[in-house]
């Protein structure tokens, strides 16, 4: 659900958060891990169901917690580039602006079902038509009521190419949206099993205000209908939100919330330890280990829908165009060793380039395990001797992991050169149609849709900007799955696709990624696998 183009954002057209970040107050790691696993596959089933608001959910009211401090201070790694929901969805912006705006639909934190939010209910009259009823009585903080027109406007402005919205790809299946006061109708080019998932990322902006002040002013002075409104924004340094007293979901728990930009992870840890911040986002496993030793703070770690993977360049003129080489690499990595050492256990092994909690995950695949002898055999079989692999990366990725993989691959006979460029250059390089970016890259992928479509389609489909791989059989399978509303059929399509990937190895799944945040011990908060950051869900106890 989060998308990033900021440096932090790592690769993804689809949503995903890079680095380390979390939500969910983890009472205990074990429970969390179990929960994450068990929820797998629950993603977007029931897309065609009609759901009503009543039963579903975590009403914001319930979030209004015990008496906490008037101000909640949150350290994030980067500053929000913008607070206009149409313009960015890098993690850092997303965390902030999702509290200013409301979403059309949400996922239940526990069941991961899609539940009503601004839309009180919805129907799916034809495979390509969706009609949402808008909950009455919601107003923007400038007093204008929120209507279906606002929802339609929010979608259509993303579809408008002149806005250059980075979210365009998520919604490109939509042909258009039309609104009335109480409803909004969305049409799609083809049946879309993931539409509702993507709509969880949609924030609703006030049509009248945006058209009146223009995009640029709106960016600086955003107005929404969420639990908080913008109080002050020192660009690059701090965003302060204040509670929206007229919020339809009840009184928000903290009078103000400060989001501070603290790029150095060690400093964020120190801030939590010293009490300067209540929550520190995006910590490393080692930070977590450190924070655990501090009695006044806690680690909030949580398996996410993100998968850590290695992308291998099949198409470029690089040793990895040889299948033997790719297999040698797959056998040459000590997954369990990396999980227990570098990741400090904050990771879960996977068998493919998918997180177990994502729809389409196939637990029956064998996957690859660490076997240096086999690795050397395959390398020898390739006849390339000791080929040089170029490991493309950027400072946005943990350099220790990259170096560890480098060391392991060198141990089985490769020569590995690390090529670091800044994030923007890295992205351009990797996405170049020439496929000349190198041999291996590391990434963490999520689509914030809990669906395989958001992962393997962009990563491996022929011609996708992230893909350095091409296989018509694979393309056919993922294409079929993306336009079907029948989940059984889809699962079988993905099984086919994943089998092909296991054979061809255009990428290697490393593990399910954990979001790790640090917090004051009074914080009680359980972010879901989608790493949402809704302030009303963050409670203050004892």
């Amino acid at each position: 659900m989060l998308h990033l183009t900021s440096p932090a954002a790592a690769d993804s057209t689809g949503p995903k958060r890079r680095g380390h970040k979390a939500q969910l107050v983890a009472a205990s790691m074990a429970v969390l891990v179990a929960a994450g696993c068990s929820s797998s596959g629950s993603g977007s089933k029931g897309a065609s169901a009609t759901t009503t608001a009543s039963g579903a959910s975590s009403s914001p009211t319930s979030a209004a917690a015990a008496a906490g401090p008037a101000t909640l201070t949150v350290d994030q790694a980067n500053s929000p580039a913008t607070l206009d929901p149409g313009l960015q969805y890098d993690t850092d912006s997303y965390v902030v602006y999702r509290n200013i705006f409301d979403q059309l639909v949400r996922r239940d934190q526990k069941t991961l079902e899609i539940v009503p939010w601004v839309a009180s209910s919805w129907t799916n009259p034809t495979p390509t038509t969706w009609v949402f009823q808008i909950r009455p009585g919601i107003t923007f903080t400038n007093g204008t009521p929120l209507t279906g027109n606002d929802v339609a406007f929010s979608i259509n402005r993303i579809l408008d190419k002149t806005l250059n919205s980075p979210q365009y790809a998520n919604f490109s299946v939509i042909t258009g949206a039309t609104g009335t006061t109480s409803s909004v109708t969305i049409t799609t080019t083809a049946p879309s099993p993931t539409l509702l998932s993507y709509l969880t990322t949609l924030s609703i902006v006030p049509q009248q205000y945006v058209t009146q002040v223009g995009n640029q002013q709106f960016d600086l002075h955003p107005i929404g209908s969420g639990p908080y409104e913008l109080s002050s924004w020192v660009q690059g340094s701090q965003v302060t939100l204040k509670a929206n007293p007229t919020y339809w979901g009840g009184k928000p728990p903290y009078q103000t919330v400060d989001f501070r930009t603290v790029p150095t992870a060690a400093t964020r840890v120190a801030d939590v330890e010293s009490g300067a911040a209540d929550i520190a986002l995006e910590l490393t496993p080692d930070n977590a280990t450190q924070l655990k030793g501090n009695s006044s703070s806690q680690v909030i770690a949580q398996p996410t829908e993100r998968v850590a993977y290695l992308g291998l360049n099949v198409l470029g003129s690089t040793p990895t165009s040889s299948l033997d080489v790719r297999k040698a690499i797959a056998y040459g990595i000590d997954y369990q060793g990396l999980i227990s050492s570098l990741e400090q256990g904050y990771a879960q092994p996977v068998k493919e380039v998918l997180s177990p909690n994502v729809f389409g995950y196939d637990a029956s695949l064998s996957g690859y395990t660490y076997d240096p002898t086999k690795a050397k055999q395959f390398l020898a079989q390739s006849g390339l001797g000791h080929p040089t692999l170029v490991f493309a990366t950027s400072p946005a990725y943990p350099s220790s992991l990259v170096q560890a993989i480098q060391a392991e691959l060198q141990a089985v006979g490769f020569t590995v050169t690390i090529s670091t460029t800044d994030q923007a250059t890295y992205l351009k390089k990797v996405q170049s149609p020439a496929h000349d970016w190198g041999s291996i890259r590391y990434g963490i992928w999520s689509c914030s849709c809990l669906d395989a479509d958001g992962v393997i389609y962009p990563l491996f489909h022929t011609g996708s900007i992230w893909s350095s791989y091409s296989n018509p059989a694979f393309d056919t399978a993922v294409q079929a799955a993306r336009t079907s509303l029948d989940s059984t059929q889809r699962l079988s399509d993905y099984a086919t696709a994943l089998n092909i990937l296991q054979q061809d190895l255009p990428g290697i799944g490393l593990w399910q990624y954990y979001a790790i945040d640090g917090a004051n011990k009074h914080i009680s908060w359980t972010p879901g696998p989608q790493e949402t950051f809704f302030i009303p869900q963050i409670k203050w106890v004892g």
Partner: protein
Amino acid sequence: MIPAEVAAPLGPAEVPAAVGAEPGRRSYRRVLRWWPLAVLAVAAFAAAFPFVLAPNLPDATDLVGRLKGPGTTVHGTSYLLGTDSLGRDVLSRVIWGTRISMTVAVIAVVAGGVVGSLLGILAGSRRKVLGGVIMRFADMVLSIPFFLLAILVVAILGPSLVNTVIVLATVRWPRYARVAFGQTLEAHSREFVKASVAVGVGPWRLFRRHILPEVLPSLIVVATLEVGLMIIYEAALSFIGLGAQPPTPSWGAMLSEGQQYVSTAWWIATFPGLALFVIVVSVNRLGDLLRDRLDPRQRSPR
């Protein structure tokens, strides 16, 4: 706070012309003052032959033995200064890091120094038009804060060790040019230079025999102090990810990595920082000593 009697000076004529050697009792002190040379000799040896001194390979990882404190033995290898986040030997990396730091700093200083000095001397000798152009250009470069300019250039060229050297040299030359220019002007105003001109000495010989020897001491002093700065700046660029790339054992990169572990594994950042600090202190002190020796006009604190 202020002594009642502030010492008054002597005119040159009154100062005893021949001051004899200090008594032997003090001579050991005079030798000890040159301790930076000893430190730098060790560093130079480490830079030239790191494989002799380093007990382990700088990039040998051992994930089980990661983040072990100084003095730990893992898998039969003992780590005197502990291990880093990949289980690499901090001591060996610090020793190999000497090579990076010293090489980058010395090449950058030599390159920037030679170019800057020659331009400065040229400007000082042909000060009408050419000199004006050169020094104006130097002023422009100098008016951009050095580190910002370095960041900009690295960002454009892409981060790498070679580019670090190029950047440090190209961005730093005006410093030498300024000094060389000033010293050259001063040298040209010296009577003996005028006398040589009057004797008919041509520009080349004038430069070689009279100007250069006059200008060189100050330049050597500046260059020495610059070496210290360059070591710091190489580390600084690596620190923000724009210098040496992993797994190159650059002190700055080690510090950058170690910063994450400063409260759990203090040794990762502390030892490269200490090494950096000791080398820079030594270089700076050496610069001061050289200044006293070569450039007595700007005596420095002891």
